[in-house]
């Protein structure tokens, strides 16, 4: 341990401002990047689900998976 107290650790021998500014910005950016990636994935999955559901509903062709829309799709193709 390079410090003997918490206040000594926070003060960083008078360089606290510099050390914590650099570390703080790094931590915030890394955290922000992770949160953004999670939000991005959730939003895309939500969007995809909604689209699939909508197309099943309207019986549109292309990737629909329910038996009903399959038949509709085939009917239109033939």
């Amino acid at each position, binding site marked *: *341990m*390079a*410090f003997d107290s918490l206040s000594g*650790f926070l003060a*960083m*021998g*008078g*360089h*606290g401002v*510099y*050390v914590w*500014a*650099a*570390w703080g*910005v*790094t931590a915030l*950016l*890394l955290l922000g*990047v*992770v949160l953004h*990636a999670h939000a*991005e*994935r959730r939003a*895309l*999955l939500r*969007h*995809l*689900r909604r*689209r*699939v559901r909508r197309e099943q509903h309207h019986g549109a062709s*292309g*990737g*629909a*998976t329910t038996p009903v829309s399959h038949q509709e799709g085939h009917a239109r193709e033939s």
Partner: protein
Amino acid sequence: MWAFIHKLGSPKWFYAISARLQPWFWVAAAVLILVGSAWGLAFAPADYQQGNSFRIIYVHVPAAFLAQSIFVSMAVAGFIFMVWKIKIADMAAAMMAPLGAAMTFVALFSGAVWGVPTWGTWWMWDARLTSMLILLFLYFGVIALRGAFSSRDSASRAASVLAMVGVINIPIIKYSVDWWYTLHQPATFSVTSRPAMPMEMWAPLLIMVLGFYCFFIALTLMRTRSEILRRESSKRWVRELAGEVS
């Protein structure tokens, strides 16, 4: 060999394999960064000249490594995309650019903050600092180019070309401290010689560097999977996926 490359280039296969790899890289990144941070901030001895401000090295150097490695990765991915038309390479390149820009910013910011107590100035137009600033603008250029075309293929090709041309800047950054007289100190790590600092100082740095690389890999896997959902949303297997994943 070619069969393997084409399998690797298939979004469906990539989506499956990356799901299995991703957790390991996240865990490794979290453990390495936490251990490296605790060690670097609280346990490594203070520098006899710089005191505790030297602890900035533990974020500055890993960020600078990533900033450069990500650009090289983008250039390689751009090359693979241009020559073999492998779409997954372009998706990965698009997804890693913002992290590269963020890491370049971290390297510049932490360096500026470190410069105040160490050099007495936060900025100098010296070769290392200037070439890093150019790297930041190259990242902005690549990101902006992708948004500037209505056709995805044109955007991808333009971004690939800029990455392949801009990668020239990387050796300039690396050798800037040798070629020109600069304030910036020379490299901390070298393949050919032992580090000049004691083990208690360089071990946490090495751990942080490895942690940052694992973070980059984990994030790129995760975001490339998202990009597959975005670009391949009309493929049947992607649609079936939407039903499974809750």
